[in-house]
């Protein structure tokens, strides 16, 4: 129990440190949010003024904006560690490797939830989406999707943080892995917004939850190897 408490304290300290750095760090977080909103605006222009067409495309565009913004977010959270070789220092602390992973993933999750909280209302307003009573299902989808994305993103940001071409390699490595998550999240969002006529929402949410569990366990078990040179 005390070991679990120690791991939780380490994870919390890392997540808190990342959050502080994000909040204070030269408007990087604001740029990501603006970029995600801009993506939605540009897709809106591309699809034209047909409100029905926009509403149909909304679930997919919502998650594309979250993925694009999320890629920047998880990369930046690891870039904090690359500055002045802080990752090397972090790896030398006598703490469990999975606790470090949990801390980084927790920071990633918080950033993804903030991103989702900004992007979702933008989609609703910009694309004229009728949410009605679908908010709980939408929020559940958003949280489960954000957990999965943070779990995978933390791992692959760790893989690429020491690479020279990390900005290119991160999406190349990560996007194929999050494809099932993206599919399930888009389907769940569409089902929630459409009133779930085929009763498929629960199955998509279960798939998202399963994906999250598998990726969190895999990340926790393997992240330590990424810290070694």
């Amino acid at each position, binding site marked *: 129990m005390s070991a679990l408490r120690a791991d939780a304290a380490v994870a919390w300290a890392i997540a808190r440190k990342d959050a502080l750095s994000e909040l204070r760090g030269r408007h990087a977080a604001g740029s990501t949010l603006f970029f995600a909103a801009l993506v939605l605006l540009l897709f809106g222009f591309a699809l034209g003024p047909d409100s029905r067409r926009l509403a149909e495309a909304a679930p997919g565009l919502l998650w594309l904006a979250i993925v694009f913004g999320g890629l920047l977010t998880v990369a930046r959270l690891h870039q904090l560690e690359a500055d002045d070789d802080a990752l090397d220092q972090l790896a*030398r602390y006598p703490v469990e490797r999975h606790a470090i992973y949990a801390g980084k993933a927790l920071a990633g999750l918080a950033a993804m939830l903030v991103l989702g909280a900004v992007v979702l209302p933008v989609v609703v307003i910009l694309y004229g989406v009728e949410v009605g009573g679908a908010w709980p299902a939408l929020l559940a989808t958003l949280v489960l999707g954000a957990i999965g994305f943070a779990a995978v993103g933390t791992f692959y940001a760790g893989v690429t943080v020491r690479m020279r071409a990390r900005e290119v390699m991160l999406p190349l490595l990560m996007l194929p892995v999050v494809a099932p998550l993206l599919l399930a999240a888009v389907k769940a969002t569409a089902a929630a917004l459409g009133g779930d006529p085929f009763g498929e929402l629960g199955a998509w949410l279960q798939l998202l939850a399963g994906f999250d569990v598998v990726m969190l366990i895999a990340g926790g078990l393997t992240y330590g190897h990424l810290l070694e040179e």
Partner: protein
Amino acid sequence: MPQTTIYVAPRTPPPPAVATRELARLFGRDAALAGVSLRVERGRLIALTGPNGAGKTTLLRILATSLRPSFGVAEVDGVDVATHPELVRPRVAYLSHATGLYDDLTAAENLRFAATLLGRPSGTDGVADTLAEVGLALDADRRVRGFSAGMRRRLALGRLLLASPSLVLLDEPHAALDADGMALVDRLLGRWRDAGATVLVASHHADRIHDQADGWARMDAGLLVEVGGEGVAATLPAPALDSAPAPVRAQR
């Protein structure tokens, strides 16, 4: 009357603080370390000297578990750094070239973060005392981004004080420091030695370290080429003519 026989196990000497055998590290085809066999006794202060590219930093990084050896063995207190890094990390404090600080946190926040990861409970983490010790008490609430290189170095030294290591590894500890900062390093070296820790210092300021060091080891081109003083022994590469005795030892 039955006889009782008491067997007394022979006392085994504690393992050395540092022991490496044919330690090598390759970066691509380049050998940063090319077979280093070194032994450092516990509680000694040893200066590690040599020109740039001699392999000093690579040796320290392997001992600090930051780098895995390509070949050979490195042990700290008898524990293999490659196979049991988790047992080595609590024993080692390492000051590297990079300070590993977070620019957007204050000096106090950086140390508090380190204290948490070193398992020191908040409230008794010693952050305020440490900042005073390294001369940064007045800068506690300033973000590190605005610090000079010397101030960052002082803060990184302060982070080492939060740990209780048996082995302290310092890579160019005097770099970027003013006269007061250099005096601080000298004071800390004395303190670690008084606490019984083994200290291995890689430095270009050989004259400054030699005054305090028990022994020294000189490296060149990834090899140990000379050792001297007390508490350090090494197997040196054989000279061109194999007339010299090997291993060459320099011990009390």
